[in-house]
């Protein structure tokens, strides 16, 4: 069995998974209107961490998340050559060194935590986080490493904001995934971390089970979601088949839900094709914004907190059905014992990835 645990979330909502959980159950969002943030000095809604300014923001967030994770595991595994750290990110330390966005952070993490192996960076746009958790599970399953620490991180930058503005993809209000009035994404920054291992005893608190999943390309468009949801359908189908799971075993879906018209529509079509459209579902982008390479790790950590706390969290920003196929989107928090959650992600480059977290 592959275990996943010791989850950490660093976001505008707090520095630990527990702080973040408290904010989520109170339906607090990290999104705020930031004056002068846009390309034309217009105010933009962003989910930014207070006090995270200046150089080395990416490195500092990763160090902070890893230090917090270290407290929750048998710290001796950090220095083992049977352990590797995987970093999931899109733009890394772009603002510090455009031409080498990751090396310095990897070397620094290796020195600071006395890691035996240099961290490995996976950069697959918005599916990076879910994909990297899957890579971690697969590495452990294949016996390549005993323990894999996954750290997903991206920091706010003018670069990414101006880019999404140029695509007219930035929401003029806090993003509203799946809502009828949704009109784009809200960007965020943050860092998530988890430990994936086949050894239960290395977790200080009880871990959960990771059911690793598959990725699938849409083979459709580099920046536009598929109209049929083909890649997402294939990813989820393969993930469920791999574990012999049928739709009846999925208690909850933590969707990607960026808040753009076409992405959310694509997901609705895919979940319908998968006969999963009646499952309770949320998007967490209304709380954290879209944290890109961190999103899949942060959102997987929230799935773990939902299972641990027996609570389904409301999909922030959603009010009126806004997809051609209705989904069962959470409009209020609701206590429920959850055994299996499906987590999905879709992104630029046509990527789709999914995984499942199961209570032990």
């Amino acid at each position: 069995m592959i275990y996943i645990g010791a989850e950490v979330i660093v976001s505008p909502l707090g520095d630990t998974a527990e702080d973040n959980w408290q904010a989520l159950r109170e339906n607090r969002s990290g999104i705020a209107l930031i004056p002068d943030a846009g390309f034309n000095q217009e105010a933009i809604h962003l989910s930014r961490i207070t006090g995270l300014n200046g150089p080395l923001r990416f490195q500092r967030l990763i160090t902070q998340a890893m230090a917090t994770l270290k407290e929750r595991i048998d710290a001796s595994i950090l220095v083992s050559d049977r352990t590797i750290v995987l970093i999931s990110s899109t733009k890394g330390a772009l603002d510090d060194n455009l031409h080498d966005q990751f090396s310095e952070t990897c070397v620094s993490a290796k020195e600071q935590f006395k890691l035996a192996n240099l961290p490995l960076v996976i950069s697959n746009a918005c599916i990076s986080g879910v994909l990297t958790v899957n890579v971690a599970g697969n590495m452990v399953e294949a016996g390549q490493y005993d323990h894999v620490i996954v750290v997903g991180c991206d920091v706010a930058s003018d670069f990414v904001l101006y880019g999404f503005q140029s695509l007219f993809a930035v929401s003029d209000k806090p993003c509203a995934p799946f809502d009828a009035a949704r009109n784009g994404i809200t960007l965020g920054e943050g860092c998530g971390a988890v430990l994936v291992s086949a050894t239960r005893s290395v977790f200080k608190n009880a871990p959960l089970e990771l059911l690793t999943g598959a990725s699938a390309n849409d083979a459709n468009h580099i920046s536009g979601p598929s109209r049929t949801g083909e890649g997402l359908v294939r990813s989820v189908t393969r993930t469920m088949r791999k574990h012999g799971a049928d739709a009846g075993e999925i208690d909850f879906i933590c969707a990607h839900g960026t808040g753009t018209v076409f992405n959310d529509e694509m997901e609705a079509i895919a979940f319908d094709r998968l006969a999963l459209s009646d499952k309770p579902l949320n998007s967490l982008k209304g709380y954290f914004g879209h944290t890109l390479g961190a999103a899949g790790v942060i959102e997987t950590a929230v799935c773990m907190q939902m299972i641990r706390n027996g609570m389904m969290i409301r999909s922030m920003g959603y009010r009126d059905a806004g997809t051609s196929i209705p989904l069962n989107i959470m409009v209020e928090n609701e206590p429920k014992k959850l055994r299996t959650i499906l987590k999905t992600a879709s992104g630029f480059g046509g990527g789709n990835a999914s995984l499942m977290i199961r209570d032990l």
Partner: protein
Amino acid sequence: MKVITAYCNLRADECLVNGEVIARRDSSSEDSWFKQLYRQQELVYPKFYKMDALSQAGYLASELIKRANPGFPEAYADDEIAMVFANASSSAVTDRRFIQSYEHGGSPSPSLFVYTLPNIVLGEIAILNKWYGENLFAVLPKFTPGFYLDYNQILLASGSRALLGGWLEVTADSTDVFLFLVEEQESGMEFSSENLLHLSQAGSVAA
């Protein structure tokens, strides 16, 4: 056994397929090297002209590998060919051009922005070939054969039957692209660290 059935090396001034030079850069031409190669090889895919250099490199090398190995894609279902690419500098060249578009060019360019992710090249190849398989892009300090070997082991367990691997480092002053195809066959060049390292240097003059 897993064997390397075709490979392509694309460098600053020459292109090799299976170790044989198929094209050399014409330094007198005003066209970019990748455009020269596209024309010389009589490739037809107008989207090529919209792509950034990283995607052009991946497109060219993958098309040349297909050409060198006729019947390869047809031997597999559309989700059985996985792609695992890596490089050292992510999408830095296009990132820089995108920054220039808003710092000096008046406004951020959407057509550049969509290429400011290293995995876009995987999407371009998937779209062209209608491949729905597994994709992964890693950023590594240097070409590391063990990375591909490890990941191939994982892919096999997940149902992929062929692997298109790639190292695509295209910067302002250097071009180092090595794509290779790994398939199950009874004999051939074994998919090993030594062979990958050796083939990645194919045709290079030994220092």
